[in-house]
């Protein structure tokens, strides 16, 4: 049998953004009718590679072959013509348009809408029957859930006769149940002869869903292997470049009194959607409680309420004294006064002002504290001194307080935030995604600092979407799903499997 041409073949793709080499001499072959996974850490260059394939960026060097034919992809239109469809991590839908309008956008037949819409309605019905992808064509996007919206994205690609479907971190916003449903759809698409590229940083998805997997690290393709011939441990090693033992050296916890006591907490967001639906949770002195769960199940809102910038009902007390959840004291400043430190989930959006220098960022949130004032004015010299000390103790590189936050690497930015929050000696430290986008070296350091704070008898509430991190760091784990706490476990007595079920909303 003659060898079939790969559906996609990339040869020697390189791409630099200014001084940053995002893709370095990447070659990959994706065979038709397979699900091909691309795995790598955040910032490994996966999305850049796919954006090149979809015509979003132009590669500096390299060639693209589609079904054996050398193909130039200068823009998305060319990618679409070449039969490539892409489902982005952040959906590219017009929120106040209907499903049908979104589907025909850019692929209309002729200048008038009416015939295009009629035709699309018919094709949509056919696609529904072919792949079991039912969606109400007249629903407005903003009324649909994320799972449905993702379906619309897939339909958009299929309507454009895509043979190759790229999905970029498709499960990031999905519940495990929705993710399973997605993988069933992908299986069905593969059966119909479609080629699928699945980009993810989650090992489990690769193992479950793909036929072949390619691993990327720091802009380079480190390996391509058959999924059945590899193991999660091997993939993890390929991803990070050395054997990782995601284990943190720590003594068993010796929990003391209850520091944080949450009772019947409910959070309704600005869109009037209830995000946290009555949870009870306690965190004691000298313990780390981890909140596990798929992103978007109410963890962020919980942190926001405790951090003082979202309103809630129910009761929360700190060392036996109630926190204000709705009134004048429900703000970040009052929380800090009460001894709550907060390392936010998104440091670039919330934790730092990227244009401010490191020393200005060190005062952030504490800029009204007395140590930083002299009379009516800010004592900038004192803040600078304080920053220099913090940078040294937390090994921030380069240790230059005058440098803007945006000039530091992700790990060093996180250390600036961590130093600021930990050295205030908080009664309770809230930590969200402490190692997201942080290099391996810094991860260990950050974990050690958190454990050290625990060992001083402080209470720590950790939110992370990385189960491994939760298991390694937390003493006790609570799993959030759809705004509820599905269950609590001692981390020594549980495993990923059990927690995974809870995260999916199954179980006790």
């Amino acid at each position, binding site marked *: 049998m003659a060898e079939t041409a790969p559906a996609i073949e990339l040869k020697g793709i390189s791409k630099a953004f*200014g*001084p940053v080499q995002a893709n370095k001499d990447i070659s990959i072959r994706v065979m038709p009718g397979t699900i091909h996974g691309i795995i790598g850490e955040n910032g490994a260059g996966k999305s850049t590679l796919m954006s090149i394939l979809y015509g979003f960026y132009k590669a500096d060097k390299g060639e693209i072959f589609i079904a054996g034919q050398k193909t130039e992809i200068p823009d998305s239109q060319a990618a679409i013509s070449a039969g490539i469809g892409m489902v982005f991590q952040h959906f590219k839908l017009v929120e106040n348009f209907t499903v049908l309008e979104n589907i025909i956008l850019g692929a209309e037949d002729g200048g008038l809408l009416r015939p295009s819409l009629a035709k699309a309605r018919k094709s949509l019905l056919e696609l529904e029957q072919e792949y079991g992808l039912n969606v109400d064509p007249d629903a407005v996007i903003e009324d649909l859930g994320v799972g449905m919206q993702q379906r619309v994205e897939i339909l958009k690609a299929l309507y454009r006769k895509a043979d190759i479907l790229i999905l970029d971190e498709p499960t990031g916003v999905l519940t495990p149940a929705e993710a399973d449903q997605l993988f069933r759809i992908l299986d069905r698409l593969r059966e119909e002869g479609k080629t699928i590229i699945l980009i993810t940083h989650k090992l489990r998805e690769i193992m479950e869903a793909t036929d072949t997997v390619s691993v990327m690290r720091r802009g380079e393709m480190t390996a391509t292997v058959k999924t059945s011939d590899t193991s999660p441990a091997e993939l993890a090693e390929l991803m990070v470049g050395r054997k990782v033992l995601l284990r943190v050296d720590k003594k068993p916890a010796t929990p003391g009194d209850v520091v944080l006591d949450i009772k019947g907490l409910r959070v309704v967001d600005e869109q009037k959607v209830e995000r946290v639906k009555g949870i009870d949770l306690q965190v004691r002195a000298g313990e780390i409680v981890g909140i596990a769960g798929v992103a978007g199940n109410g963890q962020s809102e919980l942190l926001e309420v405790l951090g003082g910038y979202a309103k809630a009902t129910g009761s929360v007390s700190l060392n036996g004294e109630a926190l204000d959840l709705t009134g004048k004291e429900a703000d*970040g*400043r009052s929380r800090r006064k009460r001894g709550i430190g907060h390392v936010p989930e998104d440091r670039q959006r919330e934790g730092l002002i*990227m244009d*401010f220098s490191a020393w200005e960022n060190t005062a952030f*949130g504490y800029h009204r504290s007395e140590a930083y004032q002299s009379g009516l*004015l*800010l004592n900038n010299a004192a803040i600078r001194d304080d920053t220099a000390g913090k940078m040294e103790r937390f090994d921030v590189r380069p240790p230059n307080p005058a440098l803007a936050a945006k*000039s530091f690497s992700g790990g060093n930015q996180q250390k600036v935030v961590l130093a600021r929050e930990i050295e205030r000696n908080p009664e309770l430290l809230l930590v969200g995604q402490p190692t997201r986008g942080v290099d391996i070296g810094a991860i260990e350091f950050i974990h050690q600092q958190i454990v050290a704070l625990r060992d001083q008898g402080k209470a720590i509430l950790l939110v992370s979407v990385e189960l491994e991190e939760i298991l390694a760091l937390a003493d006790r784990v609570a799993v959030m799903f759809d705004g509820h706490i599905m269950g609590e476990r001692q981390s020594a007595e549980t495993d990923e499997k059990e927690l995974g079920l809870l995260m999916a909303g199954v179980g006790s």
Partner: protein
Amino acid sequence: MDVIPKWAEVILVPLISLILAAILSALVILAIGEDPVAAVNLMVTGALGSTYGWGYTLYYATNFLFTGLAVSVAFHAGLFNIGGEGQAMLGGLGVALACLLIPWPHWTIALLAATVMAGLFGAAWAAIPAFLQAKRGSHIVITTIMFNFIAAAVLNYILVNVMRPPGSMDPASARFPEAVHLPTLHDILGVVGISFSKAAPANITFLIAIAACFLVWLLLWRTWLGYEIRSYGKSEPAAKYAGISPVAITMIAMLISGALAGMMAINNVMGEAERLVLNAVEGAGFIGIAVALMGRSHPFGVFLAAILFGFLYQGGAELALWTSIPRELIVVIQALVILFTGALDNMVRMPLEKLFLMLRRRDA
């Protein structure tokens, strides 16, 4: 990482923008059949060649300092206050009321009272758009534009129906009493023996404007309130995280901005006209936008830009007097400065970024 070094960002970018604006203006002058070199000469002699010229240059600069600072403070909070014009009109009303209602014994007290009234009225006029932005999310650019027009209508009504002295046909207030007459630069410099033109309108307000520059700098970079304003302007989510109230900062920044714009009135209404007329502001509120952009919203930059625009204004007036080039040339220059330093910023920046990247590569 920053591609452009800070010194280039602060000096080179505005300078290139200014040069581009100057070249285009020269072309405009050429196109209407005049000689740009002669025009510049005339402007320089007219605006800087005598203490009379300086007196006008600094008088105009004083106006622009206040409005430029007003726009800058709002910019730092991420707000575009395009309503300086209306706020300055209302400031004028405040000054007029202060000067006409109470018989002040001495100009010093009158100046204090007038400054407070000007600031209060200006701030009040900024308060509604600020409140609507903070609480209802109404776009402050649109509301402040609308408030400029409403201010003009209000002032028109008050001047015609309330403040106009009986028998006068002019839509203007009565003259202020002699006691509130502010010392001019002629009076002030005379004390130290420097002779300065008596006819020029520059007055003690210029010194107040310089003090305002310093105070604004102090506020923005040396107090926690300024820190909060700048933080909020850079990132609203981060500000919320840090316990900075978006509503409070929006209100405070706009009130300060409005007060500064309003305080311009002590210069033009109290210092110069000594009565309130309809078109007292003469577009200074809008020039504040150009001044703030040009000065990169930094009080020192604003100071330099205000002097520059003061020069352009006085020089332009001289041009209109001696050549067939109308005063509107200044409006064109002002537009070009806004265009290049504000809207086409990236056009100047992109080639510079490429240049510095190239230089850095060569070094590496």
